[in-house]
């Protein structure tokens, strides 16, 4: 009724659609920030606190809802700040990535891996590895964009994504298949 008094039906429809889509986009943005925080922390409570702080900082700095790039930068920077305060967790540089991820292929269906098992497999990865996997695979960031966000070289990011993916697969494979065969043709027996 209020709409009919002040606006034409077309104008009212635009306002309704816009208000809903804005609310949805803000919520989607926060959910994306939460997932990124989760990828860094691997803990729902910590991730919730992190995205909350990041959202406040980002909103405060520009006086309105931030875009995803700014929100992600704030999530990352606050995460680093928290690490610096606690100093009990190693936030490894992208360039520090280990070289222990050989390609090992097992014959099982990855889609059947339960969430709990995937979560514990992800927990064994380094923060940096989870971060690049999340940004690349889930968010669809390019290596260049990840390099920009993390302050690393594009080549390093590409290498890290590849190795992290192999490492994750190997961890899951070890939990599911015995024996498994590596690409080098070796057969590993437990």
């Amino acid at each position: 009724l209020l709409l009919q008094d002040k606006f034409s039906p077309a104008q009212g429809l635009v306002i309704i659609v816009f208000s809903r889509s804005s609310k949805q986009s803000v919520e989607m943005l926060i959910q994306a920030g939460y997932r990124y925080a989760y990828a860094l922390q691997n803990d729902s409570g910590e991730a919730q606190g992190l995205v909350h702080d990041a959202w406040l900082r980002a909103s405060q700095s520009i006086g309105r809802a931030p875009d995803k790039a700014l929100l992600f930068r704030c999530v990352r920077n606050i995460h680093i700040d928290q690490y610096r305060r606690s100093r009990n967790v190693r936030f490894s540089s992208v360039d520090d990535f280990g070289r222990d991820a050989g390609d090992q292929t097992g014959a099982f269906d990855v889609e059947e891996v339960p969430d709990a098992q995937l979560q514990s497999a992800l927990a064994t990865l380094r923060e940096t590895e989870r971060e690049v996997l999340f940004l690349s695979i889930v968010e669809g960031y390019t290596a260049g964009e990840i390099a920009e966000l993390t302050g690393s070289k594009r080549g390093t990011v590409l290498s890290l994504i590849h190795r992290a993916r192999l490492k994750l697969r190997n961890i899951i494979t070890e939990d599911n298949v015995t024996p498994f065969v590596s690409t080098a043709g070796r057969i590993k027996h437990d």
Partner: protein
Amino acid sequence: MTEIDDRLRDYYQSLQLNTTDMQDIVQSGQEQSRMGGIFSARRLGGSTWVAAALLLLSISVGIHEYGTHSERTYRTLNEAAINHSTRLQLEFEGRTIVEIDQLMLQLPFKVQLPTAFNKQYKVLGARYCTINGELAAHVKFLDRETDKQISLFMTRSVDDLQQINATSEQVDGVNVSLWNESGLFYAMASRFPDIP
């Protein structure tokens, strides 16, 4: 590796904040925002939703303007002035800029002085901060002649910051200079007029 990617995507997409937590975050952000009252779903209910929708409409227009040169410059000038004025505790002590650089390991760049920097300043210490959402170094100096403190902020010259032209302005009684140099973005702040 597609199946791993698909599984990871499904896993992360299944992670969701519940409605209550989401509301808390949105409302907190709304209180922090200078515009206020824009993003709260609760306030869009009842008889005030039309007004809220209109505000959202005006914000959408504003979002197109967000990121413009003048706004970025203004925001960065403010950040530097506030950071200088709040006198937060310095976390790193070092006598030289080289020592500061060696201590601030989380920075994705080398801490270095700009070319026009006055050598008579004594390093007091440094801390991490953010400029335009980028992790930055805040280094404090003492001008031995005037016994006043000077703040030098530096961060990577990302696209947004590269577009800021060199400028000097006074913000809330703080003189702030901004400029890009050698791949870094610098901001210098002090309470007295003779910024180098």
